[in-house]
């Protein structure tokens, strides 16, 4: 007799279970988010600000990751102490995590499959650009302050690909005398690209300077006029590359990066589950996800924001918090393996 069973191990079984449990809540959350976006979208000064819609994308993403992580913890018996039939699994699974690692991987695959439609179709529906472009954030070489009595602020570009736009969003200091907005002129490799279209008077004021596609090695910001000192903190100067990437690949990458909070939450849960029962493990999963997604410690929020703004994620700055999350998750996994070896018998 053939049962036609494709999933037989912890990976496949957990993945299937998470998909089964997760598709409906994720779909409902996506529909709700889209409806709310249409009905109560904030009126913004700018014509097109898709980044403002990123919370609507975050909501169903969080629902999907929470459902998958909690389902894995409930489904797989070695995630928590005292689960029914744990002895069967502990005896059959000879790995250091007794199958929890495979179950986690299955849950992550299920989450990725559930969230890919969100980061592609829903993101487009919420207004994300149809193509993604590298946004290169520049760090100033010397002092980051631009004022009348100071030298130009300069930047070296290590990846001299063609660019089409410069975006400045500096912090504004107190005016040195009566308020006169600051005018900034931009030079690329010693050649003027022009003056920024609007003078700077407010902090975090975004001004864009489009130019014909060109590569450059050095960028200089020169103070032309005005009394408002400008501080170019990290993220205040961005060059927009000319090459556009397919938004689908950006969506796939965003769904992949969104797995990190779930990985960290489940790794912490598998560590706690050595001594704690299921309610505690679920609380750890939920609070781990809450801290990383809602509170914003981790790559989740910047990733979704970058996706909605059409930033090509492969070259974006979201990888820095990713590394931190990955380190925390990996450490928790290693600790769980070591402790399980000690505690099991």
């Amino acid at each position: 007799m053939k049962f036609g069973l494709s999933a037989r191990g912890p990976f496949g079984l957990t993945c299937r279970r998470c998909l089964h449990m997760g598709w409906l809540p994720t779909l409902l959350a996506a529909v709700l988010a889209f409806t709310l976006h249409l009905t109560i979208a904030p009126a913004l000064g700018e014509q097109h600000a898709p980044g403002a819609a990123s919370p609507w994308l975050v909501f169903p993403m969080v629902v999907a990751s929470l459902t998958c992580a909690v389902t894995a913890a409930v489904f797989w018996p070695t995630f928590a102490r005292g689960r029914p039939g744990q002895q069967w699994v502990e005896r059959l699974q000879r790995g250091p995590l007794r199958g929890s690692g495979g179950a986690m991987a299955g849950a992550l695959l299920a989450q990725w499959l559930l969230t890919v439609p969100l980061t592609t179709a829903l993101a487009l529906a919420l207004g994300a650009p149809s193509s993604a472009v590298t946004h290169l954030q520049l760090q100033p070489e010397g002092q980051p302050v631009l004022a009348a009595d100071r030298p130009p602020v300069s930047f070296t570009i290590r990846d001299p690909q063609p660019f089409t736009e410069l975006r400045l969003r500096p912090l504004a200091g107190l005016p040195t005398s009566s308020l006169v907005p600051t005018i900034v002129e931009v030079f690329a490799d010693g050649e003027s690209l022009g003056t920024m279209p609007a003078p700077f008077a407010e902090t975090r004021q975004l001004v864009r300077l489009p130019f014909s596609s060109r590569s450059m090695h050095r960028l200089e910001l020169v103070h032309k006029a005005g009394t408002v000192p400008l501080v170019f903190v990290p993220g205040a100067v961005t060059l927009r590359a000319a090459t556009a990437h397919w938004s689908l690949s950006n969506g796939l990458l965003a769904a992949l990066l969104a797995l990190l909070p779930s990985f960290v939450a489940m790794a912490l849960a598998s560590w706690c589950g050595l001594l704690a029962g299921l309610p505690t493990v679920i609380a750890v999963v939920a609070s781990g996800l809450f801290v990383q997604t809602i509170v914003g410690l981790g790559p989740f929020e910047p990733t979704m924001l970058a996706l909605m703004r059409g930033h090509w994620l492969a070259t974006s700055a979201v990888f820095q918090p990713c590394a931190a999350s990955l380190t925390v998750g990996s450490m928790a996994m290693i600790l769980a393996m070591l402790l399980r070896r000690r505690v099991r018998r």
Partner: protein
Amino acid sequence: MQVYHRARMTTAISVKQLAVTFGGRGNQAAVAALLPLDLDVPTGRIVGLLGPNGSGKTTLLRVLAGLQRPTAGAVTVLGDEPDSAAAQRRVAFQPEGALPLGVLSAPEFLAYIGAELGLPNPESDARAAHWLDRLDLRHAGRRWVRTFSTGMQKRLALAAALLGDPELLLLDEPTAGLDPFGSEVVTTILRERAAAGTTVLMASHHLLEVEEICDEVLVLQNGAVRARGTLSELLATDSHAMVVRGLDATAMAGLADDARARGGEVVRIERPREHLFALFRRLAARGREGS
């Protein structure tokens, strides 16, 4: 399904001075679950493990299954360490209690067990189908395991334990919660397995059942072995008893008088009646015909 007769190895279980103690850290008092005990079980035997609750039966089974590390002593099962990979494949353990992964169907659950035992999928499915048929679980279909009755879960647990064609079966209360038919099927299967060379060590509170199928019993109390031997060794007495059937009342009274005159004790004279199990079987058969 073919049951393979194995090449005989003399000892299936060898336990020397095995002791297990729980607790004893910090303010926690140490509890001796098993006092130093020795045990050798030859292959192909069915050994019953008896004793009141908390006597150490389950702890002994867990040690033999490689799930509990002994505090002291040496244990080998089929010549290997209990937690070795080889022993894990050749020894099956059916713990008491609910089955894991309760949202799987019976075939899915057995497919998982087969995969973890390293069986090729077609072989695993064939064996699963055999045991589901044999243990009357085919009708369960795609129902979740957690919706099964206790008896169905017990039968599925036995099917899972038998799936890998083990050489040693460690069973914790294998017939608890089973109806008489289920018990009969289980005991028949255990006898067949023992005849094919599988060693069975089963903990049970069903004394009649143990008496019926076990070659030998081990009685544990407070972690120590209180008695051990074959049933005829343990249950034999100096006196003899006679069971007579087929006489009428007058002849029976005469026989009783004669027995008394010879110094015997007539314990009971009764009209023979049908065994409860036979009644149960007849009623069930009638029920099946009716449906």
